[in-house]
């Protein structure tokens, strides 16, 4: 049976060992972050942990690199808005 995690309310299947970014890409999802200044969508760019474009929020923890982080069954992955600390904005 294929395992899955949740992305913005939608189940995303993954193969054991796949990164979050790989599983999202395989599901046809291209972006999971909006930038801080222009609120533009971003997803995988360098794919190897160098560029930090693919930052995502997992179980409430923001700024994790989707290209490196292994997908985990049951994880709650959410699109990251800006720096991912919206709760701290005044």
């Amino acid at each position, binding site marked *: 049976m294929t395992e899955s995690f949740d992305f913005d309310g939608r189940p995303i299947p993954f*193969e*054991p*060992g*796949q*990164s979050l*970014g*790989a*599983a999202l*890409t*395989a599901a046809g999802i*291209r*972006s999971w972050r909006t*930038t*801080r*200044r*222009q609120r*533009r*969508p*971003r*997803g*995988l*760019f*360098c*794919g*190897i*942990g*160098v*560029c*930090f*474009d693919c*930052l995502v929020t*997992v179980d409430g*923890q923001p700024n*994790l690199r989707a*290209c490196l*982080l*292994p997908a985990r069954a049951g994880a709650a992955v959410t699109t990251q808005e800006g720096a991912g600390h919206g709760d701290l904005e005044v």
Partner: protein
Amino acid sequence: MATSRSEPYDVLVVGAGPAGLAAAAAAVTSGARVAVVDAGERPGGQFWRQRRTAVAPDQHLHHQLASYRRLLVAAAGADWYSGRTVWTITRPRRHFEVHTVSGPDEARLTLAAHRLVLAPGAYDRQLPFPGWDLPGVMTAGGVQALLKQHGVVAGRRVLVAGTGPFLLTVAAGLAEAGARVVGVHEANAGTGWLRSPRAVLRNAAKLPEALGYAATLARHRVPLHRRSVVVAAHGEDAVSWATVGRLDRDGRIRARSERTLPVDLLAVGWGFSPQLELALGLGCATRVDVDGSMVVAVDDDQRSSVAGVWVAGEACGVGGAALAAAEGEIAGADATGGPVPAKARRRRASAGVFAVAMHRAHPLPEDWTGRVTDDTLVCRCEEVTAGELRGAVDDLGADSARSAKLLVRTGMGWCQGRVCGFATSCLVAEWTGRRPSPPLPERPIAVPLTLGVLAEGAD
């Protein structure tokens, strides 16, 4: 904080790609106590990228697997610290202290060593162009990593662009995996290799590999366009079109040569940029290589200018796996005080000649800076446009990548200038008429960390 309690290692190797593995193998073979720290979960680096799960590597994606297996066996006697990133190296006493973190919770571990071999590798070099920040525009290496490590084809209609033999590797892999590769756009004519016949002949073993990719592309009817570049990517929330154009002799787009094609993935690479953060942090002297990249200066034994620090692989000049493995073997042998095999020096010489020929055959197009429009993002992290960067030069007197960073934040963000540093340096040089400044400044911390890690101190 976790510190290894044992005596310092004789040699600590950072990186487990071809250079690091060869260094570790040579050092272990000569009887030294060796540690290997690698950011990857499994050894191999970008070249021998492994699937996380234990499946047999795809044979057609992996060259020189026999060398990889041989090095793994030889390096098995080292202590392995996989999935760990080195964030800084200090030398509070006579030995080095290598500070590492692992995983989302940044679990810390500090390792001590008398001598270091740095083999941090490289990543795709990028040049900004309009629309390159759209999702679906990826580095060629990133597309390859998704395919090799995760078995994921990142798009259905793919255009591959930039320069260098790696583009053919990526295009062939994508075509074999079922993607429709609408074209490979190589900025150079390919005739540059004819100027270096001896370099090619000395490395004749590479020819079957190159011909194999060409045959794969032909079988899948993938057109290879020479002297052609990607001009822009278009789309709303992801790339859906790419504009390509043919270059004239001066590196400008020929009149009426532009075409716009529907794509959902654009894979781009302009050679590679070495990972220099740790070497710069230690104070290693640098030089500018044939391809214009800043690299670590090393002597005939791969020693850097800092005593006790050897550097091998792409960090001292991009040249591919064979060159990296030869340099690693020399570094690993010399760092243990052992004799350096003459064969390794000969392999380094041959592969080095090939690397120079490759760089000369695949230069950046002369007028690439002319295609960077004012609203093109240069720094992706801080979202700084070329117009803003130009303003820093024209109105605020920026004259280097460093002063531009202080004025308009190019290279200030998460990636710390790894992605935009080279381009920023070129653009500022172009606009000021000065020589290119170093793309990356030295910094005490090599990777972004949470303040919690810093608060604990690098003791």
